[in-house]
């Protein structure tokens, strides 16, 4: 997608959101009508006007054909993203240590690092550090460490 079109689509979405936000302020109960609702309406009008102005300027001035590229290497980019989501999903059932022990070397490998020893040492270092700082020093409970 071209950058200018992505920007325009985003601005239109923001304008719609601003309109919804403005309308929602009418439903604020009691005291909020004279306080919070005014603040919310102001924000809605302000962002709406700004977006319209930006949309207008954009239509007049932007003639570039630059394409929106989130990343030069989509494989690595989305690899990391998927890795993160899997990490989050595994966080509670597997616990931090096990999921991090899988996540760090897997991402390192995916990014093209090929020295298993360094990867293993880094992972161990991170886990050890977290154990010392979180569990020993701050006594934070992380999921999946009841065994300690």
């Amino acid at each position, binding site marked *: 997608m071209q*950058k200018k079109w*992505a*920007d325009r689509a*985003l601005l239109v979405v*923001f304008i719609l*959101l601003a309109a919804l936000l403005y309308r*929602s302020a009418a439903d*604020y*109960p*009691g*005291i*909020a009508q*004279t*306080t*919070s609702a005014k603040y919310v309406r102001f*924000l*809605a009008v302000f*962002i709406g006007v*700004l*977006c319209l*102005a*930006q949309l207008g300027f954009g239509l007049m001035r932007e003639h570039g054909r630059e394409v*929106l*590229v*989130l*990343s*030069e*290497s*989509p494989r*690595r*980019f989305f690899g*990391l*993203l998927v890795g*993160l989501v899997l*990490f*989050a999903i595994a*966080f*509670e059932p597997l616990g*931090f240590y096990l999921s*991090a022990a899988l*996540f*760090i*070397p*897997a*991402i*390192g490998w995916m*990014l*093209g*690092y090929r020295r298993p020893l*360094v*990867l293993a040492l*880094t992972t161990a270092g991170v886990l050890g550090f977290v154990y010392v*700082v*979180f569990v020993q*020093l*701050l*006594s*934070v*409970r*992380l999921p999946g460490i009841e065994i300690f």
Partner: protein
Amino acid sequence: MEYLAIVFSPAALLTIFIGTFAGVAIGGMPGLTATMAVGLLVPFTYTMDPTMGLMLLGGIYAGAMYGGSIPAILLNTPGTPAAVATAIEGYPMSRAGRAPLALKTSVTASFVGGTFSVLILLLFAPFLARQALAFGPAETFLLALMGLAGIISIADENSSLIKALIAGVLGMIIALVGTDDMSGSLRYTMGMVDLIDGIDFMPALIGLFSMIQMLELAGQRGHEIDTSALHKAQKREKLPKGIGRFMGLGAGTGTLIGILPGEGATIAAFISYNVAKRISKTRELFGKGNPEGIAAAEAGNNGCVGGSLVPTITLGIPGNSVAAALMGAFIIQGMIPGPDLFTEYADRTYPFILSLFVANGVFLAIGLFFAPYLARIALVPPAIMVPVVAAFAVLGSYALNNSVFDIYLMIAFALGGLVLKKLGYSLEALILGLILGPIAEGGFAQGMVIGRGSPWIFFESNIAKVMWLIILALLIPPLYSYWKHVHRAGKAAG
């Protein structure tokens, strides 16, 4: 004198050193905050000698405020929101191989700001706390506006002012999610219990800066960062001349704002940065790596350390969330903030305040000593750096509220923020709006209640009038130069 003897006993010095060192490390990790560390260690100090316990926590506070600037400069991943302004100047310096100078500037400025504020705390605390009480909700609203004026300074003449404003307001709108404090009703929470308290700014900060930086590193073709500059420019650069002015500016602003209610450090850093940019002779270098910006911002946020303790220990009104956690440590030892602290418990309070000087000295030594080594962090291969920082980002997001929801929130901010960034919207403005939005709203809504629905209250007091003048002074020059720029560009195009 006897208080000095307490501070300089070997056990006390060791405690302060450990606290400060831990603080620097905590502030430097994305996701670990001083609030969290102090809060978690308060029960631990229950069993310690009271004075030692307070010194430990004080060291963490002072160290963490400085520590936030290290990753901001080296990796563009500010460890605390107060270090966002530092990242704007520090990271470009790192990229240009000037990381050692940036680190040196930041640690020196932090030391100056921190020491100055503690001096004020020591000498004038009771007097200043009384004055700060005149500062009501209406003035708090204006203070938030002053901070938000920083959005204008983020957008310099070359990037779109409108887009920066849109990002800032978007941040304020995101901050609306949660409980409406005025009515207690829930708004835009979509029935999720996790959203009742609103969106925490830490997952947003981690997502928008640390995680985006990692996603961009991961997605780079070829992974070859130009490190030649780093290798050759390890020569020692001296601090630029005239930078003391900016440190002084930050120290004063930070101490003053720290005393006032609200999350002062972020506001102080941005206001100092903003003013520094206005008065600088090398304004065109701002945004491209100007040590003056780092000096002002870092002296500003560290100035809040002493400042925030002024109302905390004299009146029991903590200036920010770290001070609030610290107040818990005082109470746990039976030291209820108030005049008693300076009479009955003077043998604990004064050593605690004096220990903060030592803490500032300790992080100065740590910072200066480690700066050349820290600068090499930028040389770690991205394939190692990315997974490690990402793991800490996930852990940090979780540990804040023990909530997996915050991890997803962090990822969502990273992805959404990346799209916005690529389209030219300023993420610094977004996070500023997200942090200051609730302060602005609270001040506005409470002001309206106290003023019984009349907005006149925002102009009534003398403090308010002065604040309006400052806000106008911060807004008009950049708006004028922006208008001129657009006008010229319009003519050239036409």
